[in-house]
């Protein structure tokens, strides 16, 4: 009987192991990418996302996710560097639906987008990478920033957050993804990925748990908080201006419209911050494209939600193929890019610190 149960348990685990790639995301070790001077996923690896969206991503050269343009780049096309967080990274959608591929297609193959966006990054991570890239042989014509969450820019200046975690990389390389995921599920909480803390103390619980947390939209910002955010934004944009002479294009696509508690929220709660950013960007010579109207029109007329997935929830979460099409169309049609490529001059640009 013991033998039967042992064999049976092994067989059950094997079935889970074999079927897990259909349902469990992959864990890929990260490597230091010398030209970007940043930690990226291993070039050539395939990255599976199995949560909100459900897609496989091919990791290209320089750790770029998706169908990146081949290196060396075609000198007759416009070369854009795309920066952003997970909203721009696009592991939730297939490679041919990511911003890079859609922009290339919508611009009649005139524009090549190099996707440098990475989940969890903010401006403190992008700016040093921009400097590194300018010292490399990569010829860029402009930088594009997908601005979805203000926390990516309203940050105090600090060192980049990329720190090599050799233990994690070893685990990701050696152990199957389902085992890592199972361990992670047991050890961490689902809501904020913090280490699970067990409570055996009798209730009631008086801590500010997630159940009592206020929805972000309902939080009223204090005037001094707003001023401090604008100040941080101004500092970071000035750093960017100092870092590069290439044209910079900001695509503003905030998390609206959104579905919160059964209601569609059309208004952007950070509109005043956007106005402030626009005026700072105008002073610094940056282009800002407001995509809010296009996103709203997509919902109002086409009933197509730019964010959300069937196996997640529409109106929340990451941008989907529809959202990326809107972003890509705006990028492909941007007038500043008509005058490009200027690779001969762009090549000579160096960072000034």
């Amino acid at each position, binding site marked *: 009987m013991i033998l039967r149960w042992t064999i049976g348990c092994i067989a059950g685990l094997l079935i*889970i192991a074999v079927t897990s790639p259909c349902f469990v995301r992959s864990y890929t070790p990260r490597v230091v990418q010398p030209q970007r001077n940043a930690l990226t996923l291993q070039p050539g690896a395939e990255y599976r996302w199995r949560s909100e969206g459900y897609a496989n991503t091919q990791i290209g050269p320089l750790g770029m996710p998706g169908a990146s343009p081949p290196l060396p780049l075609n000198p007759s096309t416009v070369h854009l560097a795309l920066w952003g967080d997970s909203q721009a990274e696009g592991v939730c959608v297939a490679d041919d639906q990511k911003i890079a591929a859609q922009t290339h297609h919508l611009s009649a193959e005139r524009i090549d987008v190099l996707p440098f966006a990475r989940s969890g990054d903010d401006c403190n991570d992008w700016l040093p990478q921009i400097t590194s890239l300018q010292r490399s042989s990569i010829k860029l014509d402009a930088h594009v920033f997908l601005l979805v969450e203000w926390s990516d820019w309203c940050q105090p200046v600090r060192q980049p957050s990329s720190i090599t975690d050799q233990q994690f990389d070893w685990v990701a390389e050696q152990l199957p993804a389902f085992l890592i995921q199972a361990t992670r599920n047991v050890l961490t909480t689902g809501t904020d990925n913090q280490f699970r803390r067990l409570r055996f103390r*009798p209730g009631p619980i008086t801590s500010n748990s997630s159940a009592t947390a206020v929805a972000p939209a309902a939080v009223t910002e204090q005037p001094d908080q707003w001023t401090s955010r604008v100040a941080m934004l101004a500092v970071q944009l000035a750093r960017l201006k100092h870092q590069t002479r290439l044209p910079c294009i900001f695509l503003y696509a905030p998390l609206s419209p959104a579905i919160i508690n059964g209601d569609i929220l059309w208004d952007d709660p950070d509109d005043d911050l956007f106005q402030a950013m626009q005026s700072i960007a105008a002073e610094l010579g940056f282009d800002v494209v407001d995509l809010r109207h296009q996103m709203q029109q997509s919902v109002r007329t086409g009933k197509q939600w730019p964010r959300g997935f069937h196996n997640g929830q529409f109106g929340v979460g990451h941008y989907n193929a529809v959202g990326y099409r809107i972003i890509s169309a705006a990028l492909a049609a941007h007038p500043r890019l008509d005058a490009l490529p200027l690779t001969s001059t762009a090549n000579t640009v160096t960072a000034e610190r």
Partner: protein
Amino acid sequence: MQFTQIEFLLFLALVLTIAWQCRQRHSRNLVLLLASYYFYSYWDYRFCGLLLFSTAVDFVVAKKIQTTPARRSKRCWLVVSLSSNLGVLGFFKYFNFFIESAAPLVQSLGWNPGTLDIILPVGISFYTFQTLSYTIDVYRGKIDATDSLLDFALYVAFFPQLVAGPIVRASELLPQLSGNVPHWSSRRFYGGFQMVLRGLVKKVLLADRLGEMVDVVFAGPELYDGWTVWLAVIGYAGQIYYDFSGYSDIAIGIAKMLGFRFPVNFRHPYLAGSVTEFWRRWHMTLSRWLRDYLYIPLGGSRHGSMRTAINLIITMLLGGLWHGAAWTFVLWGLWHGVALVVERWLRSLSGRASPFCLGHLSTLAVVGVGWVLFRCDSLQDCWLVVQQLVFWSPGIGWYPPLAIAAVGCMVADHIAWSTRLRRVMRLRFDRWYAPVVTTIMIACLILYAPRGFAPFVYFQF
């Protein structure tokens, strides 16, 4: 403490270990009682007093009823029990509901009644019904009042069934508690473990997955197209069934692992061919409680068809109100009451039950509409859902694959249960597939559980 928390699994392992080490009935029951009070205090220790109060009142009252020879005095003691139990339940559960419902009338008289900030004690509806059934059974002479306060306190607070049933009668559990310590049986322990595992799978992998979709659609049904709203309503039928039957399975399984036997609470209710049969398969311990302590005392079906209809409707109305202090629950009870009456009337006309398919489909339709009433927060929300179900207004077409798969599992589960596969589903220890399926279930619970915490639906009742 919820059955799906890691803390509970550790607590259970400890309780099982200690309980099976106790060879004396008294010490074993004491361990289980302390564990049960700890289990309850994990939510809020202040309400242990309420549990103690209910226990003490019914223990004393039952003794008085037993020892008092005069019928009139017995009745007086019964009234004491009923009024104290229902008084506590009424205050904590229904005070604000009645105040709010009466507010328009009272305000028109120039008085503005306020509401109180009352916390509903977890499980109060369940343990109140258990203690009531004990006192009433003693009053009726069906059982003897117990002499052991420890046994009775454990009967009321026994942690597997304390907060969401099944509603176990004193005649079922007290003899087990006051008898000899059950003998260890690895076969029974394994059976209990399988029930717990099955309950966890039902709750975590099916109910919670369905709940992720259902909660969003019911929050704004007007945003979604007809297909999506239909999927959400079917999904809710699955969610509430797997949530509650999952809880019951875990409770029954834990009791079995401890050597006790609990009554079955669900028998695949969506296979029912009539609404009457549905109530014989859904929350069976509540149905028979309502039948024995409400419907039959009201007269049952003994006084003609009109009186039977009224009795049925009163019973179901109060059954609805038991679920929650809201008009939607009252309407849900009324809906089922009317359906039972109409079904009886149709049966009396034709003289036989309707053909299986017709009866089955009509039962599903009645139950489905009932779930809309049950799930919505207000009548306005119900109307919005019904509008989308009927008129198919355009909206977001959202078809989550996992929710659809969970609905598919529900259909497959019901079909399998009605065939010979029912035996296979028991996963007997000596079958070759038992370890394979058991491992897969445990692995799926760890790997594929939704990452947020979702309490059991019936905790709110």
